[in-house]
C-alpha cells in the first residue's frame, strides 16, 4: 500500500482514537492531536523533494481512474497540505494552553472538539489531494458537518446586546455579561456556561447554507455524469466541449459549495454569526484551513474548466460571472467589516473580502495571476490564523469579543499587540509584510487584462481603503491608554509599562505566544524574501495554468481517459 495514504490516515486516526483514549482527560486528546499534526507536517515536508522533482498520482486500492480514486501529489496540493497541517499544528498548540484565567471548557478544547477538528482537517486535506469530483464532494461534506458541530459547541464570550437578549441566561451569566461589557474587564468565569445563541444560530445558518450548496453540487455532479459519463476532474480536461448554457449551469452548480466555503457573495450570510460563535482556535482553522483548502480546490476546478476542456464554450461567461461575484464579495466583505463591533466578525468579513480578491484573480483568463493568487492565499492563511489566535487571546483577557473593550491591552502585552499589528498590516497589503506582494501581483494581473477587469481592480482598491481604516482602528486601540484624554500627562498613561516593574496581568501563555511568533515570523519572512515561497508556488502555478500536461496526464493512464 502506498505510504502517502498517511496524509489522510493521520487525521482519521486522531478522530477515532481520541474518544477511545481520552475519556478522562481532554488534555491527552489535545496532545495526541498536536503530535499527530506535527508528524503529518513533518511527513509532508519529507515528501516534498520527490514531489517537486515530479508530481505523481497515487492510485488508491489499485482501481484505475476514471473508476477509481486517485490522490494527486504535486507542488500545489502538497504545498496546500503543508500549510493546512502547519495551521492545524499551531492551532492545536494554541488549544493546549489556556488563553487566560478563563477556564470555561470551550468547545474546541474538549475531547469531542479535538476529534471534530481532526475530521475538519481531514476534509481540508482531502479536498486538496483528491482528483475525483465525487470524492471532493465527500470531503466537503465531512468538513462541513464537522464545522457545523464545532461552531455549535462554541462558548463565546458575550459579544453584544443581541446575544445577551436572546439567551435564556442564568443570573450568573447575566452578571458576567454586564461585567464583561465594562471597560476594565475582569470577568468572573462562571462554572458552566449555557449554550450561546450566537453559536447555535451561526452553526444552523452554516448548516443550512452548506447543505443547500452540497445539494446543488450533487445535482451538478449528476448532470455532468449524465452528459459525459465521467466523474474525475482530469478527464474533463481534454473532453470535447459541452453545450454552452448547459456547461455554464453545471459549472456553477459544481462550484457552489466551494464558493460557499470561500465566503463568496451571495453565499456568505453565515459568516458573521458562525465565526463569532466559534471557539477561537476553530475560527483560525475555519479561515486558515477551510477557506484555503476550498480556495485551492476552487482554483483547481477553475483551471480544469478553462479552455480546451469540457467547459470550453462557457469559459468566458463563467469568468465574467466569477469576476462580478469576486468584486462584489470584496466590496461587501470590507464594507460589512467596517462597522462591526465584534472582533471575530470583523476578521471573518475581512476573510470574505480577501477571498473575493482570490476569486477575482482566479477568474482572470489564462491564469495570468495564478502564482500571485497562490502567494496571496498563503499569506492570507498565515496572517488570518495569526489574527484569530491573538483575537482569541485578547478576547479572553478582555472578557468580551468587542474590540472596543480591548483598548489598552497592547500596553500590557506589547509583543502580542505588535504581532496583531503585523498581521493586520499584512492583510492591508503593506510592504515589509507578506500581503504586499500578493496584492501587488494580483492587481498587476487584473490591470494588464484590461477591459471589465479594471472595475474589479477598482473594487479591490476601494476595499483596500476601507480595510486599512478599520484594521488600523483596531490595531491602534490596542495601544491606546484606557483612560487617556489629551490633557493627561504622559506619566500617568505610561504607568503600566514604564519603570513600574511587573505588569498588572499575567504574561502571555506560551501556547499563544509560540504559534503567534511562528506565524508572525512567517509573515515577515515572506514579506522580506518572497522568493522563498516562490520556489514552491511557481511550479504550482504552472500546474494550474496548463492543467493538461501537468495534471491530467499524470493522473490518467494514457489512453484511459475516455
Amino acid at each position, binding site marked *: 500500500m502506498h505510504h502517502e495514504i498517511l496524509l489522510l490516515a493521520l487525521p482519521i486516526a486522531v478522530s477515532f482514537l481520541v474518544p477511545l483514549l481520552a475519556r478522562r482527560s481532554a488534555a491527552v486528546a489535545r496532545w495526541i492531536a498536536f503530535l499527530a499534526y506535527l508528524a503529518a507536517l513533518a511527513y509532508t515536508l519529507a515528501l516534498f523533494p520527490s514531489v517537486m522533482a515530479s508530481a505523481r498520482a497515487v492510485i488508491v486500492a489499485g482501481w484505475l481512474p476514471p473508476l477509481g480514486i486517485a490522490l494527486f501529489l504535486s507542488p500545489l496540493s502538497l504545498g496546500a497540505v503543508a500549510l493546512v497541517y502547519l495551521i492545524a499544528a499551531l492551532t492545536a498548540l494554541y488549544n493546549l494552553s489556556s488563553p487566560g484565567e478563563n477556564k470555561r471548557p470551550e468547545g474546541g478544547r474538549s475531547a469531542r472538539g479535538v476529534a471534530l477538528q481532526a475530521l475538519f482537517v481531514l476534509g481540508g486535506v482531502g479536498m486538496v489531494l483528491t482528483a475525483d469530483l465525487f470524492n471532493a464532494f465527500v470531503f466537503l461534506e465531512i468538513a462541513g458537518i464537522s464545522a457545523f458541530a464545532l461552531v455549535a459547541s462554541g462558548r463565546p464570550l458575550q459579544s453584544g446586546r443581541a446575544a445577551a437578549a436572546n439567551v435564556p441566561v442564568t443570573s450568573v451569566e447575566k452578571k458576567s455579561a454586564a461585567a464583561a461589557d465594562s471597560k476594565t474587564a475582569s470577568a468572573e468565569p462562571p462554572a458552566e456556561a449555557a449554550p450561546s445563541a450566537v453559536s447555535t444560530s451561526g452553526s444552523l445558518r452554516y448548516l443550512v447554507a452548506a447543505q443547500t450548496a452540497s445539494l446543488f453540487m450533487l445535482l451538478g455532479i449528476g448532470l455532468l455524469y449524465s452528459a459525459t459519463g465521467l466523474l474525475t476532474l482530469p478527464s474533463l480536461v481534454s473532453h470535447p466541449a459541452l453545450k454552452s448554457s448547459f456547461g455554464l449551469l453545471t459549472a456553477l452548480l459544481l462550484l457552489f459549495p466551494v464558493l460557499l466555503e470561500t465566503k463568496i457573495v451571495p453565499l*456568505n450570510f453565515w459568516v458573521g454569526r458562525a465565526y463569532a460563535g466559534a471557539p477561537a482556535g476553530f475560527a483560525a482553522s475555519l479561515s486558515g484551513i477551510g477557506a484555503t483548502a476550498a480556495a485551492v480546490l476552487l482554483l483547481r476546478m477553475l483551471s480544469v474548466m478553462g479552455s480546451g476542456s469540457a467547459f470550453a464554450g462557457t469559459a468566458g461567461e463563467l469568468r465574467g460571472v466569477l469576476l462580478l461575484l469576486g468584486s462584489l464579495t470584496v466590496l*461587501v466583505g470590507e464594507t460589512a467589516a467596517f462597522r462591526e463591533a465584534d472582533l471575530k466578525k470583523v476578521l471573518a468579513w475581512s476573510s470574505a473580502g480577501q477571498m473575493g480578491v482570490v476569486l477575482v484573480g482566479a477568474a482572470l483568463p489564462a491564469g495570468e495571476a495564478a502564482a500571485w493568487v497562490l502567494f496571496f492565499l498563503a499569506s492570507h492563511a498565515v496572517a488570518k490564523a495569526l489574527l484569530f489566535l491573538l483575537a482569541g487571546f485578547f478576547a479572553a483577557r478582555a472578557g468580551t469579543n468587542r474590540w472596543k473593550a480591548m483598548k489598552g491591552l497592547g500596553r500590557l502585552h506589547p509583543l502580542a499587540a505588535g504581532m496583531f499589528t503585523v498581521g493586520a498590516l499584512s492583510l492591508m497589503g503593506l510592504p515589509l509584510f507578506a500581503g504586499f506582494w500578493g496584492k501587488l501581483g494580483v492587481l498587476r494581473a487584473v490591470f494588464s487584462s484590461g477591459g471589465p477587469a479594471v472595475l474589479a481592480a477598482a473594487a479591490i482598491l476601494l476595499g483596500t481603503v476601507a480595510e486599512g481604516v478599520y484594521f488600523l482602528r483596531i490595531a491602534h486601540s490596542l495601544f491606546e491608554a484606557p483612560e487617556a484624554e489629551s490633557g493627561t500627562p504622559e506619566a500617568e498613561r505610561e504607568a503600566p509599562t514604564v519603570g513600574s516593574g511587573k505588569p498588572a496581568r499575567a504574561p502571555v501563555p506560551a501556547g499563544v505566544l509560540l504559534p503567534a511568533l511562528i506565524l508572525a515570523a512567517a509573515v515577515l519572512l515572506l514579506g522580506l524574501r518572497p522568493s522563498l515561497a516562490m520556489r514552491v508556488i511557481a511550479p504550482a502555478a504552472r500546474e494550474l495554468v496548463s492543467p493538461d500536461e501537468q495534471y491530467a496526464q499524470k493522473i490518467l493512464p494514457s489512453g484511459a481517459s475516455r
Partner: protein
Amino acid sequence: MNALLLPLLALPAIGIVSLLLFRRARVLQWLLFLLAAGALVATAALLYGRWELSAGLSLGVATLGFRNTPLGWLFFAFSSGLTLFIALFSLSYNDRRHSSGVAPLWMILLAATMGIFFAGDWIAFLVAWEIMGWTSFFIIAHGRESSFRASIYYYTLSLIGTAALLAALFTVWRLTGTLDLDGSLAALAALWTAQPGAVTLVALLLAVSFLAKSALGPFFMWPALAHAEAPDDFSAYLSGVMIKYGLFALVRLVLPLFGPAYAGATVQGTPVFLYILGWIGGLTAVWGTLLAVRENDMKRMMAYSTVSNMGYILVALSVNTVFGVAAALFHIFNHMIFKGTIFLSLAAVKYRTGERQLHRLGGLAYRMPVTFFAFLIGIIAAAGIPPMSGFASKWMVIQSLFSRRMLLLAVPVLFASTASFMYLYRGLHGIYLGQLSPRFRDVRPAPPLQMLAMLLLMLAVYAVGTFPGLALLPIRDALAGLQEVIGAGGVGSQIPVTLGTIMGVSSRINLTTVSFVFLGSFIGVLVLYLLGKRRSRVEWLDTYTAGEDPAEWNMTPEQYHYAYRFYEPFEKMINPLLERLSLERAYESLARSFRRLSGSVARALSGGGAGVAVALLALAVILIVGVAR
C-alpha cells in the same frame, strides 16, 4: 553595499531592534535617533556629486532599484539637515513627562523617506511610499485617542492616494512595459500624440495621489488635524519634510510628462493640466490662509499655514519652466527651515506650559526669550519679509509667474501672502506678548539643547535670507540635469543667481544689500533712540486705562490679555463664505453614509431567513442571466 543601500537597510533594522529591545530605554532610543540623523547628514555629504551611483535590492520576485539623482539628493540633503536639528531638539524634549516613544518608528520612516527620494523604479517608490504611510500613521496617533482620530483622517486620504498611485503604476506598466522610473516616464511622454487620453489619465491619477499627500486642493484639511495632534517634535518633521513628498513626486514623476514631448493644448505657454494645478495651488493658498486666521489653537494655525505654503509651491511648479521649479524648490527649502523653527518653538512652549490655546498663553517672551526670537525669526520668514529667507523664494515664485504672464494667478498668491501677516502676528502676540499669566510667572526658559536646535535653525533662516545663493546655487546645479526633461532654452530656462543676488524677469535684487540696509537703518534708529531721554521700566498692569486702576476691577492678567477671537471683524466677513463652501462637511457626510452602509450591509447579510432567501434569489438571477446568454 554602497552608500545608498547601507542606510536604507541599516535604519529600519536599528529601528526594529530598538522597538523590540529598547522599549524602556527612552534616552537610548532618542540618542540612537540622533545618531541616525547625523549618519544621514554624513551620507548626504558622501553622496554629493556621485550621480552615477545606484543600488539594487533584489528580493527574488522583484528588484528595488535606487539611484542617486541631483533632485533626489537635494531633497534628501535638505530634509536630513532639518531632521538633525529636530533630533537635537527631540533628545531634550522627550523626557519622562513628554516622551512619545516614537523614535524606532521614526527611524524606519527616515529610511522610507530616503527610499522615496532615491527611488529608481516604480516598485521601490511604491514600497517606500507605503512604508512611509503606515509608520507615519502610528507615529501621529502615538497611542492617544484624539491623535488617533486625526491620524486616521490623514491615513484615509493617504490610502485613497495610494489607490490612485497603484492604478497609475499599473497603467504605466501596461503602456510602457518598463518599471524603471526615468525610462517609463520618457516612454510615456512620447505617447502624447498617440494616446493622449491614457497619458492624461496617468497624470490625473498621479496628481490625485500627490495632491492628497501634500494637502492641496480638496485635501487641504488633514494637516490641521494631523500636524496639530502629532507629538510636538514630530509636527516639525511633518510640516517640514513629510508634507513635501507629494510635491517631490510631482516634480519627479508628473512634470517630466509635460516636457518637450508634450503635444497637447497650452494656456499662456503652460500645459492645460498644469495650469489647472496652478489654480488649485493658488486657491489652496488663499483657503489655507483664511482658515488659519480663524484658529485659536497654535498648532492648527501653523498647520493651515503649511497648507497655504504648499499652494505657493504648486503655483510655482505650474509654470513648467526650470526657473519655476527652482523657485518651488527654494520655497520648499525655506519653508522647511522656517516652519521647523516655528514648530520647534511651539513645542518648547508646550513643553514648559502644557498649553496650546492662544488665549491661555501670553507674555511668554518675557520668560523664554530665545524661544520668542526663534518664533519671531520664523514668522518674519513665513511672512516673506526681507531680510529673512522667505522673501527671496516668494519673490521668485512671483517672478516665475511673470515669466509666463500668468498674472491673474499672482493675485491669490499675493492675497494669501499678505493675509498671512494676520495670523502670524496673532500667534506672536497671543503666545509671546501681551500680558503674562501668573500661572506662568515661574516658567523657565527652554532647556539648553532645545535652545541650541532653535538657534541653529534661526541662523540658517537668517543666513539664507542674506545670502540666498547658499541654497539657490546647489538648486541651480541640481536642476542643470533637468533641462532635457522640462525643456531647454526658452523662457525661464536659466536660473541666474549669485551668492547674494537673485534675478528674475522683471527686476533683480541684491538681498545682501537689502539685509545690510536694514541693519544699517536699525543702527541709525538705535542711535536716535539713545539720543532720546532715558526711559523707565514699569509694571505690566501699569498701563493706560484713562486714569483708573485695573486692580480695582479685579482685573487679572489673563483677562487683560487680548487674544481670544482676535480677528472677530474679519471672521464676521469671511465666515459665511467658509460655512457655505465647507469641504469638511462634505467629507463628514460621505464618511457617515459609508458607516451607515456598512451597518446595513452587515445586518442584511446576517439576517437569518430573509438573508438566505435574498441570497438564493440573487444567485438564481445570476444563473438565469448567465444561462440565458
